[in-house]
């Protein structure tokens, strides 16, 4: 009866693997890079990690529901441009800069507006995927293109500098010396961690992601759940856009470009499976910390910028390899019989009735 032991160990490791890696990373970087664990650098890691972190929450929800949201980075672009456009004074566009629409709305009006815009975009994604039966990959990819195109059209491809201070509070402000963006991100993780583990909605998301047919046969409405997931993802992407624009104080038309791969990578590194139905928000948080730390270290170590992407890509591939092995080890998705987990017992010995309970009650399991 070796297998159940090994199995439980592997299961434990696959669930908490990221934390081990995280501690290891902190120690290695802390020892090898000067000033890595200084207050300034830690703040730096957390601030750059917070935008990533907010987006990872939305993407994790999508992944848990066995979907993907490629449009989120497009939402970041669009809401940043729209926010700047609505808040900044009118100005003739020259080569480098564009002005706003001229309405100069108050940030307190603009913020709810862009958050709602993000939610509507997410809802549209979910609606097309679940109600019109369109493929989620293509829908969100096309949506990304649409959003990015709109952002470019509105901004005329130019930057819009000088967003108002009230708007910048989330991205650049500090409370008692702690960056507001970091506080907000941690707060969001607590909220969504609770939602996913303790609320009905979370339960449904996991169920739909693990087995949509069975979720439906259990009395859930997969369509409603997935549309809500995408709406949340759009909302969170808009929030990330607000945060990012607030930090930069300047709308750049291609804001957020290339974020998606990092976001998915952080989630997967944190144990959220691409195959749906698994993973936790707290694990995703660890994934974000890890990726933010690595990115920061790559900067500090003066790694040739031409090599940075190769290293990042490699890390992502390793995370995906681990994810794939995890599900291979558990057998093919959804339809597996437990043969693999109890392999090694080809036994023709012993009565067949007695074998089962025995196997399931191995002491190793508790």
């Amino acid at each position, binding site marked *: 009866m070796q297998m159940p032991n090994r199995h439980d160990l592997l299961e434990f490791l696959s669930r908490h693997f990221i934390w081990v890696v995280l501690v290891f990373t902190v120690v290695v970087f802390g020892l090898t890079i000067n000033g890595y664990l200084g207050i300034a650098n830690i703040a730096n890691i957390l601030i750059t990690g917070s935008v990533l972190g907010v987006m990872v929450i939305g993407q994790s929800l999508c992944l848990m529901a066995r979907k993907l949201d490629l449009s989120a980075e497009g939402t970041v672009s669009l809401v940043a441009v729209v926010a700047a456009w609505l808040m900044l004074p009118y100005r003739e566009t020259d080569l480098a800069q564009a002005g706003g629409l001229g309405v100069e709305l108050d940030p307190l009006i603009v913020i709810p507006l862009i958050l709602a815009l993000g939610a509507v975009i997410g809802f549209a994604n979910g609606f097309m995927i679940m109600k019109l039966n369109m493929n989620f990959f293509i829908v969100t990819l096309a949506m990304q293109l649409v959003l990015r195109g709109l952002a470019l059209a509105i901004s005329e491809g130019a930057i819009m500098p000088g967003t108002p201070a009230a708007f910048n509070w989330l991205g650049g402000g500090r409370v008692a010396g702690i960056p507001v963006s970091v506080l907000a991100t941690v707060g969001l993780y607590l909220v969504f961690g609770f939602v996913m583990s*303790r609320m*009905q909605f979370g339960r449904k998301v996991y169920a739909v992601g693990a087995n949509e047919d069975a979720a439906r046969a259990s009395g859930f409405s997969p369509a409603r759940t997935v549309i809500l997931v995408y709406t949340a993802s759009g909302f969170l992407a808009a929030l990330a856009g607000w945060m990012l624009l607030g930090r930069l104080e300047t709308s750049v038309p291609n804001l957020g470009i290339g974020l998606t791969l990092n976001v998915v990578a952080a989630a997967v590194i944190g144990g959220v499976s691409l195959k749906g139905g698994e993973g936790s928000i707290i694990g995703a948080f660890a994934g974000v910390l890890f990726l933010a730390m690595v990115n920061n270290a790559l900067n500090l170590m003066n790694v040739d910028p031409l090599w940075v992407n190769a290293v990042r890509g490699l890390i992502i591939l390793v995370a995906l390899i681990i994810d794939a092995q995890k599900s291979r080890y558990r057998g093919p998705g959804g339809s597996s019989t437990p043969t693999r987990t109890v392999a090694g017992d080809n036994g023709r010995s012993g009565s067949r*009735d007695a074998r*089962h309970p025995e196997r*399931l009650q191995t002491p190793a399991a508790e």
Partner: protein
Amino acid sequence: MAETRTSQHSDEILLDMRGISKSYPGVQALEDADFSVRRGEIHGLVGKNGAGKSTLMGVLMGIREADSGTIAIEGETLRHASPQTMLDAGISYVPQHINLLNTLTVAENILVGNLPKNRFGLVDWKAVNEDSQARLSRLGLKLDVRQLVEGLSVAERTMLAIAKALFNNARLIILDEPTAALTRVDIDLLFSFVRAQQQQGVAFIYISHHLEEVFEICDRVTVMRDGRIVGTRAIDEIDVPGLVHMMVGGGVKEYERDSTAGREVVFEASNLSRRGAYEDVNFALRQGEVVGISGLQGSGVDELAQGLFGLERLGVGEVYVGGDAYRPDSPKAAFEAGVAYLPQDRHRYGLIQLRSVRENVTYSVLDRLVGRLGVLLRKDEHELTEEYIDKLGIVTPGPEQRTLLLSGGNQQKVVFAKLAATQPTVLILHEPTQGVDVQAKVDIFNIINDLSTQGVATMIISSEVRELIGLCDRIFVMCGGRITREFSRAADDMKPEDILLAIEGGPLDADA
């Protein structure tokens, strides 16, 4: 009779399988099975679902590894059985749902991977068509090779699949339910083609639930039951009742319960019809009554069950639950109306395998377990889970165990718990004992008994006739989309042979 069987087959043994055993966790799928096929014979293989036919054929095709036993072909024992070695040895499988390249022509399907090319390296279509036409006419198969496969009838596709196997030098072809979707004319067409190949010395294993056809085409027949070979008979040594008897076995009942049926009708269907699935279905279930429905694939029974739970369209007609009109458009609506359904495909519809026992048990009743703002009441949830783990005897290390890691029987109990938690008026069970071990079967029978004692009306859709006889107050037989027979404990006419005959399509002419 005799002159139709003047095939050229000798008594030479082509295939000899000896002592084949195969077990899965909790189930002995094959036990010491001996099976042999002679050169040029058509050998029937019959048995109920789960008797072990597909496992045996899986071993023969090299897609399942036997725990023990040997396979010899023409006296030569195979050392290693992989799909490739079995194909090389001349063993081919033609499934019920034929796998061909539907959007390509017959010729392309025949020569796929080996299309003749002209001197420019391009496909020589003239040669393709001529070559494939010539090959087909050698087999006596009349098909236009330029036709797309998707335009062929099912019988033609089956014959094309057999022809393809023969072009690959097959000597033994396994036909799995080839006539399930065929009209009588097509069956004749297929049979004459199969006999023509038999004359050339090709052997066939013919798997079918339609016993009439087995008698029509086979030379010998082997019966399987519960993973064992019951026996092999020459076809003129046995008749239909004898075969049925071998299939169902000696013991009539595996379990017996007392009727708990009340008087009040709680579930009623009238004139229920869905085009292409079932027609004019009428039944009424009383409180606490257990009713079985049995029918072959294609009899409409599967669609009926799924339709009654809102997984498929229900069609026209009326259904009443507890006197109220019932028309489910989703499983959610069905649960709310008091109808719960245990799906046949536990892995696809029943369980969410990645998630824990606790989550699976409470999915159906989450609405009752939430406090304010949709926060789950953990304590209530744990109590409910523990209650059902205890009540149904679910063997698990704890409520947090992933259901993936439970045995088939315990997985099934988890699904039962999920349904029972909704406190249904009507319980529809679809093959509730499939893939579970003997002990779990008895547990499941007890669960059914407990629920019906509490007044739940239960409908069991099953091909396990003996189990139904032990459990049910009445048994309906569905055939060709209609309820064709009703047996009842009260009338004392629940005889396994009669029921099986009704399932196969009514009394045979031979017995009349």
